[in-house]
C-alpha cells in the first residue's frame, strides 16, 4: 500500500561562513498516498534539503515530518522508502547489479535477482550488468541510481533531479517510462526537477518553491488524464501551464 508524506511547519537552517542560511522556512506539504508530486524551484531553494529530511538523513530545527505516519528514519528502516540522489552516488567497487542490490544488503533482505534483472532492462542497461560505475557515462550511472531507488518496491519514492544528466531524447523516453512504472505501482512519488515540461508531463500537482528563505510559493494542479502521451508536449493547454509555472518561478 502506498503511503503519504506529510510536512508541517518544517524549518531547517544552516550556519555557514556567509551567515545563516534559511534552507527551509515554515514549509507545510501533504502528499496523498499514490499521488505524483513534482517539486520545482531555483537552485538553492531547499529542494534537496527537503528530501534529506523526508528520508531521515537530516532532522528539522522545527516542525514535523512523517512518512505513512512514521518518522522518516522508521519508515526507512522498514524499507518503505526509495531514493535516487541528485548525483548517482554509486559505490565504485560494485558492479551495476550489485549497486542496484545495495538496499537489500542494508535492509538485510535476500537479493531478488529477477527484480534486479527486470529493472536493468527497464532502464535500458541490459548487457551492462557486470560493468563498474567507472565504465559508464553520467547518464547511465543516473539510470542505475533510479533502478536502485525502485529495487525494494518502495511505497514512497523520492527522486532528486534524476534526469538532469540525460540528453533531451533520453529524458523524454525516461519520462514516459517513469509514468508507466508509476501507473503500474501507484507508488507515492516526489520528483525534484528543474524541467518545467517534465514536471507538467509527470505530476498530478506541481509545487513551486522560492529561495531565501526556502518556502513553497505556489501549488498548481495538473488536470491532464493518464496515460499522457508524448503529443501532449505540443498542445496549447500544455503551453499555458508552462507559462503559468514559469511565472510562478519568477515570483508572480
Amino acid at each position: 500500500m502506498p503511503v503519504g508524506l506529510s510536512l508541517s511547519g518544517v524549518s531547517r537552517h544552516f550556519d555557514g561562513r556567509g551567515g545563516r542560511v534559511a534552507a527551509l522556512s515554515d514549509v507545510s506539504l501533504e502528499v496523498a498516498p499514490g499521488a505524483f508530486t513534482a517539486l520545482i524551484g531555483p537552485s538553492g531553494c531547499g529542494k534537496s534539503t527537503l528530501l534529506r529530511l523526508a528520508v531521515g538523513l537530516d532532522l528539522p530545527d522545527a516542525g514535523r515530518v512523517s512518512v505513512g505516519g512514521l518518522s522518516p528514519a522508521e519508515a526507512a528502516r522498514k524499507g518503505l522508502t526509495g531514493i535516487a540522489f541528485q548525483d548517482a552516488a554509486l559505490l565504485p567497487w560494485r558492479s551495476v547489479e550489485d549497486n542496484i542490490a545495495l538496499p537489500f544488503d542494508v535492509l538485510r533482505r535476500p537479493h531478488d535477482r529477477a527484480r534486479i534483472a527486470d529493472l536493468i532492462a527497464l532502464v535500458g542497461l541490459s548487457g551492462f550488468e557486470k560493468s563498474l560505475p567507472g565504465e559508464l557515462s553520467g547518464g547511465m550511472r543516473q539510470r542505475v541510481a533510479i533502478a536502485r531507488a525502485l529495487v525494494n518496491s518502495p511505497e514512497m519514492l523520492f527522486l532528486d533531479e534524476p534526469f538532469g544528466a540525460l540528453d533531451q531524447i533520453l529524458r523524454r523516453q525516461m519520462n514516459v517510462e517513469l509514468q508507466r512504472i508509476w501507473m503500474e505501482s501507484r507508488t507515492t512519488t516526489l520528483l525534484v526537477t528543474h524541467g518545467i515540461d517534465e514536471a507538467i508531463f509527470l505530476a498530478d500537482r506541481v509545487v513551486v518553491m522560492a529561495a531565501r528563505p526556502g518556502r513553497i510559493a505556489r501549488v498548481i494542479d495538473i488536470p491532464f488524464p493518464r496515460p499522457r502521451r508524448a503529443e501532449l508536449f505540443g498542445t496549447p493547454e500544455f503551453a499555458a501551464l508552462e507559462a503559468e509555472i514559469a511565472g510562478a518561478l519568477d515570483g508572480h
Partner: protein
Amino acid sequence: MAIRAIIALVLWEVVGRLGLVAGGALPAPSAIAIRFWADRGDYPMHVWATMQGAGIGFLIGNLVAVLAGVLFAVSPVAARLARGVNIAIFALPAIAIAPILTLMTTGMTPRVILAALGCYFVTMTATVTGITQTDARMRDVVRAYGGGRMASLRLVELRSAVPQILGALRIAAPAAVLGSILAEFGGGGRFGLGAYLIGSLGRADPARLWGIGLAATLLAGIGYAVFAVIAQRMTASTVAVTVAATPPAGEVDGPVWQRIALAAGSVLLPFALWWALIAASGAPAMIAKTPMALLDYLMLPNKAGERIWDALAQTLPITAVGIALGLGFAFALALGSVLRPGIVRAFMPVALVTQTMPLVALTPLLVLIFGRGPSVILWITVSVTFFPAFVTMAQGLQMVARSALDVPRAYGASAWTVLRLVSIPASAPYVFAALRLAVPRALLGVMTAEWLATGTGLGNLLNQSRGYLDYGMIWTVAVLSVLLSVFFYQVVVWIERRVLARLGMTTAA
C-alpha cells in the same frame, strides 16, 4: 633504463676490483656473488628466521592496526585517549627497547613485537584516514535505507578504505623486516639476517656483509612489491608513498573538564600500559622495572645520572646535526625540483626505492666504508632522514596549484621570486611533516650506529648495560629515548601549530 643499470654495474665492478672505496670496503659485484655462492648453505635458515619474525609481526601488527583504526575512526574519544600511546609507538626508536624485549621474552617474541610495532602506526593512520575520507554521499545511501554506523562500515567505509590500507601495507612490509633485524641486533637468537650480519661484522669480509645486506634489502623489497602489485590490481589507483607522521586527532568538543580529563588520560595511558604489561608478564622485579622501580634506581648512589648525561651530551648534538643536514639537503633538492622538474623525475625513483629498504639495518655496511668514527653516524642519520623528507616535500610541492605559480610569473617574476613568494611558504606544512618523521628515525639511526660502531652515546650505554646485566640502566635508557623522542615530536608539533596558524595553513599528513 637497462643500459644505465648495466653501465652502473660495470662501473661498480671496476671500482670494486681496483679497491677504490676505503681500501676495498666496496667489493665488486662478482666478488659478492662468489661469496654468496660459497655461503649458500647458510642463507636459507637465516632468511627463514627473519621472514618468520617479520611475517608473524606483520600479521599481528596490521591486524591490531586495522582494528584500532576502525575504533579511532568511530570514536573520537578513543582516538584522543590513545593519542599518547600512538605517538609513543610512532616515536620510539626500536633499537632502544630491543634489549628489554630480549630480557622479558624468549625465542621469536622480541622480533615479532618489534616487527608488529613497525607496522602499527602506518596502517592504523591509513585505516582512520580511509574511513573518515569515505565519500559522504555513499554513506548517505546506506543511511537513507535505515542503515546504522555498523552497516555503513560494513558496506561502504571499510571497503573504501582499502586503497589506503593497501598503500600502508606496502610501507609496513619493509618496516616489519627492519623490526625483526633490529631485534636480532639487540640480542637473542642465532639465526636471522641481523644475527648473521652481527656475527660476520668482526671477520673482515666485506663481500659477505654486502651479500647479507643485499639479501635483507631484497626481502624487504619483495614484501613491498607484493603489496604494491595487490594494491594496483585491486584499486587501479595509486596512493602516494609518503609515510604518515600524524596520529588521528580525535577532536572532542565537550566541556573543558572533559577535554582536560582526556588529555591527562592520554598522557597516563602509556605508563598504565607499561605497568599492566609488566604485571601480566610475571617477570621478576629485578629484571622487569615498573615506573616506580626506575625512580628508585635513579636515586641509588651509582652515578647513573652522570653516565646518562655524558651519553646524552654525545648523542643529542650529532642527532641534531644529522637531522639538519638530512632535511636541509632534502629541502634544497625539493625546491630545486620546482625550478627543474627533471630533478624529481631523476631522483624520485631512487628515493622511493629507499622507502622499501631497511636502511638502518645496513649500518654494518656503512661501518665498512666510513670506519667507526663519528662520520658514520652522520652518514646513517642523513640517509635515514633525507629520503623520506625528500619524498614528503617534493610531493607536497607538486601539489601547489599551477595557477598559484602562474600568477607571479604573469607579472614577470623570476624563478627565484616565484620560489620565494609561492613555493617556500607553500612548503611549510611539508617541512614540518618531514621533521616529525625525521626525529625518531634519526634517533634510531644514531643509537644503532653508536651501538654497533662508535661505542659512544646512548646506544653504547645500552649495549654496555646489557653486558653488565645492569637492568636498571637498560630500562632507563629505553624509557629515556622514548621520552626524548616524544618530547621532540611534541616540540615540533607545538612550533608547527603556531607557524602554520600564522600562515593560515593546516597540517599536512
